[in-house]
Every structure is written in structure tokens, then in C-alpha cells.
């Protein structure tokens, strides 16, 4: 493994009984980058993190973290990684400070440095004023911040973040993203999973798009967007919900990709512009629908995701448990 590669996965596979959760994935993470696994819920992102951090054994394949094998040298790996699970799982009964002190004890931070390190992290995360508050009394954003602080108590070389901003309000999510960028600037490698396309676009140096247990594309957000830029992307807004007429519209536009971004809004990828305008206007006239606006748009990572996966972006808005997330 090259010095620059801190994580390397080869054919990593996980079955839960009959269910194939992760399907022979291969990827590499470079030192100092923010690498994102992007995909809808149930894509296998969390299972991948669990395998890399020793919480779950791969059924097939292998992976190494910082040159150590995840099968035989997991304890060595754990000394150098910090993990922030999707659920903020510190101890309700302990104060913010005591939670960090316990983590410092568990990770073997030298006795003389524990207090200093815990206080330093509480200050960095803006929690110093609440250091004596029990974990259960903190707001959701504060709990998330403290969970990340706990993952960093031993100065890890790699930080694994599973859906870091899930459940946070817009302000807390924004401040957390800034913090992640700061950590990268300090030289930390960050491996994160997200189903928020904008988050991946904003934070990640490289993204692996994961769908149904497979990585179907890896690249920088810019390179993924560049694939779509070669083709035209036109967005049509209608005066009503056209969900039930979407198939009819697709049938009229053979050879191009039609995706509903909202119930009354579609994006059309590729094809000859004149033909697209002609067909869509004819469709609107036939169905008695009014076109409210037509925009030729600059592709986003969302457009690249739609083009690459063939999935509707609405699938990414579904939170675990089937809820739709609000605009962030």
C-alpha cells in the first residue's frame, strides 16, 4: 500500500443472512482527504464503516486501514482512528466533561494530558460552558458535537463520520460542516457517509456513489459533474403535479433521461435541445398543462447522481424510517 493511501478495500462484501448488504466494493482513501460514501439509506454505507472500524466482520474480501489488516490487526487500527456513529451514543448520566474523560481513559490518553485535552475539545466545540451538564441535558446539536469530540479525544489520524449532520438543524449542520473542513485543513483524513448530495458536494474531495451495496462511480464532485456538463440539462416547471404523466412524457422523449425533481418539475438530461422543447411543449398542449418556466441549468452533483445512478433524487430525501428530510 502506498504511503498516501490510508484506507484500501478490495472486494469487501457483507451478507446478513441472505441479504447482500455490501457487494464486493473496491475503493481507496488518500491521506488528508475528505472521502465520502454517498448513497440513499440502505445502500450499505454504514455497514462499510462498521467493517472498517471492527464492529462487523466482512463475509468476503479484505481491507486495510493505515496499513493494518481489518481482520487480524483491528486493535492496532482502533488506536489511530476516531469513529462517530450516526447515533450520538455517549452516556446520559455523565457530564460532557466526564464523558470525554472516560473516553480519554479508555483510549489510553496519558493521565497528565486527559484533562487538558478534554477541556481543549470542549472549547473547540463551543461546549465549555456546558461542561458540567449531563449528556442527556444537551441539545441535539450539542450532543452531536460532543460525540465528535469524543471521537477525537486521542488525536486520531482518521475520523470516520457516519451521517454527521443527520437530525441537526440548518445552523448546527452548517457549523459542523465548517468544523469538518477545519479538521481536514489540520491534516486529518476524514471518511464520511452521507445521503445529502449538497453535503457531499460541499465537503468531499472525492465521492464514491454507492447504491444497493455497490460502488458504481468514484471521483471528485467536479469530475462527476463534468460528466453531465457534456450534455444539456433542461428543467421544466408545470402548473400542476405531473407524477402520473411522467411515463407518457418519457415515452415521447426516447433516448434521454427524464427525472422528476419535484411533483411539478422535471429535468431532462441529454438529447437535442430543439427536439426536447418541441416534444415537451406538445406534451403540455395535449394534456392541457401549462408550462410555467423553462431553464437550461448548470449541472449539480444531484444531476450527476441522477445521470449515474438512474435514481430519482427523492430517494435521497428519504430518512431512515421512511421520513422525508426537510430542505437544508
Amino acid at each position, binding site marked *: 500500500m502506498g504511503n498516501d493511501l490510508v484506507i484500501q478495500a478490495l472486494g469487501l462484501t457483507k451478507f446478513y443472512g441472505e441479504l447482500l448488504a455490501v457487494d464486493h466494493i473496491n475503493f481507496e482513501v488518500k491521506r488528508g482527504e475528505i472521502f465520502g460514501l454517498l448513497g440513499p439509506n440502505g445502500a450499505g454505507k454504514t455497514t462499510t464503516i462498521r467493517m472498517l472500524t471492527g464492529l462487523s466482520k466482512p463475509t468476503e474480501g479484505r481491507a486495510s486501514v493505515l496499513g493494518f489488516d481489518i481482520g487480524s490487526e483491528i*486493535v492496532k487500527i482502533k488506536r489511530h482512528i476516531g469513529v462517530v456513529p450516526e*447515533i450520538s451514543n455517549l452516556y446520559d448520566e455523565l457530564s460532557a466533561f466526564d464523558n470525554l474523560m472516560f473516553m480519554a481513559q479508555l483510549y489510553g490518553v496519558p493521565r497528565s494530558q486527559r484533562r487538558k485535552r478534554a477541556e481543549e475539545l470542549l472549547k473547540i466545540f463551543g461546549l465549555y460552558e456546558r461542561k458540567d451538564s449531563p449528556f442527556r441535558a444537551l441539545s441535539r446539536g450539542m450532543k452531536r458535537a460532543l460525540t465528535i469530540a469524543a471521537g477525537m479525544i486521542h488525536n486520531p489520524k482518521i475520523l470516520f463520520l457516519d451521517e454527521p449532520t443527520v437530525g441537526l438543524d440548518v445552523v448546527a449542520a452548517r457549523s459542523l460542516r465548517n468544523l469538518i473542513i477545519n479538521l481536514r485543513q489540520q491534516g486529518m483524513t476524514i471518511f464520511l457517509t452521507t445521503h445529502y448530495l449538497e453535503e457531499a458536494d460541499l465537503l468531499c474531495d472525492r465521492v464514491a456513489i454507492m447504491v444497493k451495496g455497490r460502488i458504481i462511480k468514484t471521483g471528485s464532485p467536479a469530475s462527476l459533474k463534468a460528466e453531465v456538463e457534456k450534455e444539456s440539462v433542461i428543467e421544466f416547471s408545470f402548473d400542476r403535479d405531473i407524477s402520473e404523466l411522467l411515463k407518457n412524457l418519457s415515452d415521447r422523449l426516447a433516448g434521454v433521461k427524464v427525472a422528476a425533481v419535484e411533483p411539478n418539475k422535471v429535468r431532462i438530461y441529454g438529447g437535442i435541445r430543439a427536439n426536447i422543447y418541441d416534444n415537451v411543449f406538445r406534451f403540455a398542449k395535449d394534456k392541457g398543462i401549462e408550462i410555467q418556466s423553462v431553464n437550461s441549468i448548470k449541472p449539480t452533483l444531484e444531476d450527476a447522481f441522477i445521470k449515474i445512478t438512474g435514481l430519482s433524487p427523492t430517494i435521497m430525501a428519504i430518512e431512515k424510517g421512511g421520513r422525508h428530510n426537510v430542505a437544508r
Partner: protein
Amino acid sequence: MWRDNLRGIYYIALKDMRTYYLKPPSVSWGIIFPVAWILAFYLRNPRGFEELVPGLIAMTILFSTTAAEAVVINFELRLGSLERLLLAPISLPSVLLGKVLGGAIFGLLMVTVVTTGSVLSLGLHPNIPYLILIVILSLFVFSSLGALLCVLVKEVFEAQTLLNLPRFIMIFLCGVVYPVSAMPKVLQYLAYVMPLTYTVDGLRHAFSATSSTMVFTDALVLMGFFVLFILPAIKLLYKKFE
């Protein structure tokens, strides 16, 4: 590596003591219940209370070690806090041993109070090394029994229910109140496959200072029970994280 594991075991046990054990529900279940139970027998027959002391200590060991076991394992599994421990650079057996040690330390505190109180108030003269040997081994046996029964199930209430079954069967069959030898043959056989029988027996020998061979036999059997409980508990916990 072993230093990491020892450190992990120690700090997990300390954390559990702080967050779960030294709380009113655990203290009441671990000490008040056995004392109330034995007092009921004492009030019925105030003479010969000395004979009930080994049973009282055995019950305190049983109830205090398992008082918060369901919470420290099943509740943490459910909340994901147990995963947090497994993310630390320590082995999974060390995490479980930390949980078992927490129960054992709490049990030791409760037993120390009950034993000291009984010995001083009744003027008893137990063989201290034998007493310590049987108490320490029993604390680990019942704490690991609690851990095993907890990892067998998923929910806290399932674990509590499952723990109650052996606890109450053992109170009646293992010589806590009635001598095993006075029970029907079939129940005697049943008593000999239960660890509390050897705790009570060992404690009786420690208090009567009779046969050292019998104390060591009881100690050996208790060691066997510890291995019998802790190994499958570790295996089952591994299975939960496969």
C-alpha cells in the same frame, strides 16, 4: 495489548459503578431485598440466626452482582453505547469482563456491609481467608451468569425476566434457608448443578471452620462455573457483532 485490555476492564467497571450500580434501585435490590428476606425467616424463628448468615451473604452476592446487569449490557446494546466501548482499542472479551468486574465490585461493597454487620453483631469468628476466597469467586460467578443471561436476549425486560428465574429457583434449592440434605433426592440433584449451592456450602465451612478440603472443592467448582458462564457469554457477544 494486555495493558490496553486491563486498562479498559478497569475503567469500564468504574464507569458502570458510577452510572448504574451506585444508584438507589441497584442498592435496594442488591442489599435490602436479601436482608428483608432473611429477616422474615428470623422473625419466624429468632433462635439460630447464625445459621442463616451464610445464606444471607450468598443471597446478597447473588442479588447485588446481577442487580444492574440487564441495564449495563442490554440497555447499552440498545442505545449503541456498548458499540462505543467496542470502538476503543480493547478486545471484546475485555469489554465483557469490564462489565462483569463492575457487578463484582458492587457485590463486594454490598457483601462487605452485610458480612461485617452480621459478624460484629452476632460475634461470629469466620475463617477470613476461606470467606474471602468463596466470596470473591462467587461474585465473579454470578456476575458472569448475569452477563450470559443478558447477552442471550435483546431487551432489558427480557433479561430481567430471565434473570429472575434462576435467582428465585436458587434461593429455594441451594441451601440458603433449608439445608440441601433435607430436601427430596430429586431436588438435591438439581441443587448440585446450581452454583449458589457451592457458595452457601463454602460459606458454611468458612463460618464453621471445619473442613478446608470442602472449601477448596467448592472453590474449584465455582471456578468451573465462572468458565462455564463467561466463555459462552463472550461467544454470544461476538455473534451480535458479526
